């Protein structure tokens, strides 16, 4: 009886706990992302390979924005259930969406801080850092890297 209670109770507590913490973290992260996006929206960040002809560029440098994210227990549980039936893994969608947007924001901030006026040729890379299996070994982590060419306009 006690064993069963522990075997069922601990995952259940983990589920509830990670859901509450995870969703609070996600909400506050989204709030912060929206504020920073709206503040930096006038900073051109485009994926054109070459700058528009009208731009008078006097300097350029590569800039990067990098994010490493990990999933929580609840999201992994939900994704595990989803795996049985297929379909959209919605619990991962928001996670990766946050990661991409955060990476681009950091890219913009890196370029802005160094006095650049825009970033062109922006690319996004995603790579898995470690796999997470059901035994809980390893950490599920994804790195999202945004990189591009920061350019400076003539005054």
């Amino acid at each position, binding site marked *: 009886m006690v064993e069963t209670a522990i075997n069922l109770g601990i995952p259940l507590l983990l589920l509830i706990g990670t*859901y509450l913490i995870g*969703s609070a973290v996600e909400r506050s992260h989204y709030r912060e992302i*929206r504020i920073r*996006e*709206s503040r930096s*929206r*006038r900073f*051109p960040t*485009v994926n054109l390979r070459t700058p*528009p002809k*009208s731009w008078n560029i006097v300097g350029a440098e590569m800039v990067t924005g990098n994010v490493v994210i990990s999933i929580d227990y*609840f*999201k992994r549980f*939900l994704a595990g*259930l*989803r795996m*049985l*039936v297929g379909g*959209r893994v*919605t*619990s991962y*969608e*928001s996670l*990766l*969406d946050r990661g*991409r947007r955060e990476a681009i924001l950091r890219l913009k901030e890196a370029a802005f801080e160094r006095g650049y006026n825009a970033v062109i040729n922006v690319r996004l890379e995603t790579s898995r850092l470690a796999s997470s299996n*059901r035994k809980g070994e390893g950490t599920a982590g994804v790195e999202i890297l945004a990189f591009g060419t920061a350019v400076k306009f003539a005054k």
Partner: protein
Amino acid sequence: MEYRPRIPREGINVTERHPLSELVILIAGIAAVVAALVVAAFAFIEVAIRWVPPSFESRLFGRLWSADAGSEQEDPRLEAATAVLGRLASHWEGNPYELQLAIMEEQTPNAFAVPGGMIYLTRGLLESVESENELAFILGHELGHFRNRDHLRALGRGLIVSLTLSALIGGSAAESVPRVATTLTQNGFAREQEREADTFGIALVQAEYGHVAGTDGFFRRLPDATAGIGDEFASYLATHPVSEARIEALRSLARENGWSVTGELTTLPRLTSGHSRGS
């Protein structure tokens, strides 16, 4: 070209569905499908066990337990039990099994039939039976499980439950198979199956001894196990019907058939010091 900064609306890259509703829908859907599959598999087992001949069953499972059989042959009570089993089985017309007996080193009195014709008696049971008649009824009861193929049914159901669980929550199915074969065969009989096994067992005892005295002795000592739980509740929960109900069922069966409930009890060989020996 003019740069027009506009922030796209939310919900393009993210499906806006509440994670809890997603959780509930997924769990409910998967549970419904799994339940349907398990019910279908149980129905399949009911059909399949009729098509498994006992000879095939013995070939398949006999080797699993053969190491246990006879390892304690020097025990006089086990020898006596083996003899009783042989005589009882002779009253079972068309018995297709090559029956074997083995002792399980456990103090809780219990007996169970596993596929392939093997019957396990716990050490605690061998020590607590007071007469041969009582032991004979227990063995007859297990023979009843064999006749009704309850052991196969329980094994099949146990396998399905264990496979389902391991598919859902992970873990190797292969490593749980032997465990399931014993534990679930031991515990997995429904009350109706127990009653039918009782009926078969007592008929064998009557055929052997000419009376059914002593058959209820084992049940009389059982209630200790469920003491503390309300009788109704225990009866509802237990896979074994509460002893009183089973004794009553046996009595009325004896009355209907005109079997004598009194008679001379056959004594069993005395216990040796063997019970303190571990296996």
